């Protein structure tokens, strides 16, 4: 099953068919989510209109963790089963994840100032999220630091797997320690503690961010497969 998709040529064919569908899904979901979030959802009883930052902040934070987990799984498959496509998927995920992590930190800062009274605190949630950003940046730096791509892939895959430990720390930091950041509202044991009128735009935006990730991933994987072909062709020309 895995081998069917792991074939780069077959992947290229599937990707070029799937890409326009994913693109349209992203645009539709984001459009609906933005409409609900900005025009058709109530202000919060405590936070007023500032609650609308949630519709970009929370999906970005979810995607930051989702991308990292996906990257770690792909890197693990690449390391153990030596699937070239898995390595490419891990590499292609990193910039998207780094962007989402930065956005979660940035929008969180903009939300924290009016609500908490500070742009930044060194509590467990915010600090572990900053560590996640450094893990992404470290991975990107490491994978590009080697002349031999195989060695770069191996070292950076190990880094990703080591850093995976940070993901549960981020998720549960608000439950394990006293933090300024509040506990989870949606992904919690006893169901969401968020009104339905606010949950819908949040979930739509989260879905839009997810399809956006797949969209960028498809484009990037195609680009990386072609890039590998170019390298092989050039090597052949030099030696031929």
């Amino acid at each position: 099953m895995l081998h069917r998709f792991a074939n780069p040529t077959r992947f290229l064919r599937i990707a070029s068919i799937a890409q326009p569908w994913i693109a349209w899904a992203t645009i539709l979901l984001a459009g609906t989510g933005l409409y609900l979030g900005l025009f058709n959802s109530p202000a919060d009883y405590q936070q007023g209109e500032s609650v609308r930052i949630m519709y970009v902040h929370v999906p970005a934070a979810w995607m930051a963790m989702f991308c990292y987990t996906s990257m770690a799984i792909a890197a693990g498959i690449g390391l153990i089963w030596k699937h070239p496509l898995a390595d490419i998927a891990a590499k292609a995920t990193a910039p998207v994840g780094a962007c989402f992590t930065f956005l979660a930190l940035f929008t969180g800062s903009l939300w924290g100032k009016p609500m908490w009274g500070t742009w930044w605190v060194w509590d467990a949630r915010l600090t572990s999220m900053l560590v996640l950003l450094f893990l992404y940046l470290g991975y990107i730096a490491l994978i590009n630091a080697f002349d031999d791509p195989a060695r770069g892939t191996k070292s950076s895959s190990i880094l990703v797997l080591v850093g995976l430990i940070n993901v549960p720390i981020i998720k549960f930091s608000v439950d394990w320690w006293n933090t300024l950041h509040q506990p989870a509202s949606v992904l919690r044991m006893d169901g969401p503690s968020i009104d339905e009128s606010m949950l819908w735009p949040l979930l739509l935006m989260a879905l839009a961010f997810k399809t956006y990730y797949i969209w960028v991933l498809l484009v990037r994987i195609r680009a990386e497969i072609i890039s590998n072909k170019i390298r092989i062709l050039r090597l052949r020309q030099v030696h031929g």
Partner: protein
Amino acid sequence: MGSYKDGKVMDQIRDFINMEGYGGYVWPSYLVTAGLMIILLVITRRFLKANMATLEALENTAKEDVE
């Protein structure tokens, strides 16, 4: 909207942008998020296009070499 006077519509727009005074926090959040996501997508697409062009050029020269 037709039943509203112009002034009222303008007020509504101003209220919407102002966001109870939180506009300065809400709008940068949305704009930077949208901006960064679009930039990343555009960069990735350019990377693909550039690679496709390079590959095509390489394949053409490879063919010429064979001939």
